[in-house]
Every structure is written in C-alpha cells, then in structure tokens.
C-alpha cells in the first residue's frame, strides 16, 4: 500500500493551498464571465481555463507548470515570454482591420493619441506607489487597452509582472462596456452627445494600399521600439488591402490568429499561479489598471471637446472615448451611449477612426517606453 500512499502525497488535494483554490475560483469566474456575459470570450475563456490549469498543484519533479524548464507549458509560454505571440496577433488583426473610417477623417486620428495619456499618468501613479521605473512603464501600458501590446512590453520591461499586467489589461478590456459609459456621460453635456457627424467620404483602394506602408514608416522612424508590433499590423493590413495576397490575409486572420490566440490566452492564464500572482503588487497593478482605463477614456473625451473649440464641423465628443485601442468594443460603447440620447445617431463608423488610431497610438507609446527603459 506504500505506493498508494506515496501517490496520494502527489495528488493535488494534498498540496493545494488557499491561494491555488482562490485562483481556480477566479479562473472559473473568468470562464463564466466569457460564457454568460460574452465579455471578450476569445481571450477570457482561454485565460480563465489557463488559470485553473496553472493552479493545480503538483510535485516539482514532474515539470508541469509554465515556470519549470522542459515542461510542455514552458514551451508554449516561450511565445509569451519572448514576445513572439503579440506580433503574430497583430498580423492577424491587421488582416482584419479596415482603416477606411480613419482615412476618411484624418483629424480623428488625434483622439487616438490623446487617450494614451492614460498610459503616462498611470506610469506616474506607479512610480508614486514605489514601483521601479521600468515596472511603472509596463504597468502604465495597461492604459493602452491593448492586450498584445501589454504582453509585448511587459515581457521586455517587467517579465515578473507579465501575468498580472496581461490579465489586468484583458480584464478591463472585457469591462469596457462597464467602465467607459459613466465617465463619458460625466464629461459631456446632453447637447454634445446629440451632435451628429458628417457622413465620411469614400476612400479609394489606392489610399488603403499606400496607408499601411506610410504609417509604418512614420511610426517606426519616430519610435523604433514599435517596429515589430506596427510592422506586423501593417503587413497584415497590406496583405488584406493589396487584393493580390487574399489567401495569405485569409489565413492570417483565421487559422493563424486563432491558433495563437488559444495558446497565448491559455499560457498567460497558466502563468497566473497563486505563488507568483497573489501578491500585493498584483493588487496594485489591478488598481492602477482600472484608473488608467478611466484616465484614457477621459483623455479622449476631453481632447475631443478641446478640438471642437477650433472646428467648424463639430465632433461628437463621445467618440473620444474610442481613442483607447479596445477594438471594436470601445466604438460599440460610443454607438450605444450615443443612441441612448438619439436612437437615429449612428456614431459607430466615426468611432472606428479613433479606435484603430488608438491601436497605433498604444503601440507607439509602448515603443517609446521600451526605448526609454531598455538597459
């Protein structure tokens, strides 16, 4: 019977800690949120399930978790820790993004810059709370509302916080419909929320083809740290818009991005082990993350109001909230809040402009932070 008793010592029951149990419940909560509330299910479901898997305790000699050399999960996690998955996700996103809305109304691009104030003010907050400068940079990026960018930058600046930062970023991205509306209403008058915007002009295919090459050159020359993310985004978009590589674009935005999404989500979740995740630092990261989303939203809305001081064709300031890069959730929130006031006001397409600009803005901000903090 010795073998049976020896074996029982290796079971999860015997080694379970309260922290593990709590994280398993958190994982189940994420999965439930994804399924019941339909919040970012493509990410919350794999992350949640990963958190369940990552918190089953096991004896060290079996090499099961993401941090143990030679384990299967450690190989899958390499794509996270080396920053390989985020650019591949960006390739797929590029191949499914239509920049028309942005091309037809270039001034809305600036809203995607304004919302990045969330990143930098959160950085100051993190410094204030005692995080090191490069940790602060990584935490700040949560305000960019972009999961792959957050993973990419954390893997470079603060690998030990990667789990918390990634999960905070995805959690708040899932909560965009909860976080943004009150801030948007608080900062706008009813009259502003009723503003209707001019129908966007038609964009030629030639513009759509030239755009990804041009925007890559601009971003990359100004902030070389954004080369990988924006390079892949623009390559994906060029594959789509060029019309001569449709089959590549199709694979990039389907089989390729789906495969990477499953493995990225699962291994990020599995990295959130109680032992490394349940720390006071993680709590601070989550608190700062929530604040950063609020600031980013406010930044976009307020900047839109400022722009209106100089514009003849007024912008509906609600679309400033779409300056965060949570595509397309933020744009949908704008549409929703706008339609509460006027069911015939269709802001969705207009909001897509700052929304995709926000993706560029947050990737550029990540590149800048990387340049500043790299050793």
């Amino acid at each position: 019977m010795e073998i049976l008793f020896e074996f029982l010592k290796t079971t999860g029951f015997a080694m379970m800690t309260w922290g593990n149990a709590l994280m398993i419940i958190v994982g189940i909560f994420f999965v439930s949120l994804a399924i019941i509330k339909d919040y970012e299910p493509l990410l919350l479901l794999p992350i949640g399930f990963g958190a369940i898997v990552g918190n089953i305790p096991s004896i060290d000699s079996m090499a099961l978790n993401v941090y143990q050399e030679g384990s299967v999960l450690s190989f899958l996690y390499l794509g996270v820790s080396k920053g390989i998955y985020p650019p591949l996700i960006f390739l797929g996103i590029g191949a499914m993004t239509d920049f028309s809305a942005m091309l037809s109304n270039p001034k809305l691009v600036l809203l995607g810059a304004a919302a990045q104030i969330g990143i930098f003010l959160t950085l100051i907050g993190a410094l204030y709370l005692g995080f090191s400068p490069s940790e602060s940079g990584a935490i700040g990026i949560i305000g960019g509302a972009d999961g792959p960018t957050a993973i990419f930058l954390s893997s470079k600046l603060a690998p030990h916080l990667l789990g918390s930062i990634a999960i905070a970023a995805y959690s708040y991205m899932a909560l965009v419909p909860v976080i943004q509306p009150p801030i948007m209403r608080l900062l706008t008058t009813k009259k502003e929320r009723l503003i209707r915007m001019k129908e966007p002009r038609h964009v030629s295919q030639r513009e759509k083809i030239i755009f990804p090459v041009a925007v890559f050159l601009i971003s990359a020359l100004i902030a070389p740290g954004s080369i990988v993310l924006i390079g892949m985004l623009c390559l994906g978009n060029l594959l789509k818009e060029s019309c001569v590589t449709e089959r590549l674009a199709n694979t990039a935005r389907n089989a390729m991005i789906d495969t990477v999404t499953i493995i990225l989500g699962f291994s990020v979740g599995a990295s959130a082990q109680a032992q490394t995740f349940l720390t006071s630092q993680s709590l601070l990261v989550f608190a700062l993350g929530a604040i950063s989303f609020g600031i980013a939203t406010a930044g976009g809305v307020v900047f839109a109001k400022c722009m209106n001081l100089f514009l003849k064709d007024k912008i509906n300031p609600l679309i400033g909230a779409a300056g965060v890069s949570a595509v397309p959730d933020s744009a949908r929130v704008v549409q929703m809040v706008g339609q509460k006031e006027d069911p015939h006001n269709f802001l969705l397409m207009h909001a897509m402009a700052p929304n995709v600009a926000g993706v560029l803005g947050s990737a550029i901000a990540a590149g800048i932070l990387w340049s500043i903090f790299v050793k």
Partner: protein
Amino acid sequence: MNSGVQNIVNGQGIMITISGMLIVFAALAITSFFIYLLPIFLRIFASILPAEETSHHIPAFYSAPEDEALAAIGFALHSEAGGSMVGKESF
C-alpha cells in the same frame, strides 16, 4: 535478465496495478457521480438561474449586427468573409 517473477516483485508490479486501478476507478467513479448529480443540481438551481436559451446564440463571425444602422448612414461596409471592420470579437 533476472528471473521474471523476481522482476515483478522488485518493480512492485502488483502494488502498482492495484493502486493504479484503484485511482483510475476513483477518478472515473467521482466523475460518474458528478455527472449523475449535475442535472439534479441544475434542476434545483433552475429557479435562481436564468432560463437556458433554447438555442444558445452561435455568433456569426465578423458579422456586423448594426447592419441596418450602417446601411442608414450609407457607408460601404466591407463585410466579406472574415474581414469586416466592425467585427464581433477582439483579440
């Protein structure tokens, strides 16, 4: 090669078999029992849980549910397979 039976004794073959089968049975018996209880629990909690949708929505990928809205503002939405501008999912 040692005598075969001695190998089994040295390798604790019998003990491994008994323990192993016990654990496999334990795991699947608990699973079986859980499956047995599951619909009973769900029936008990049915009153507090929301009614299950008869046909759980299967999202049309990258379809744009605001189509009517968009049509209204007359903006050409490229909703070809897999590449709409206003997709359902984000990554």
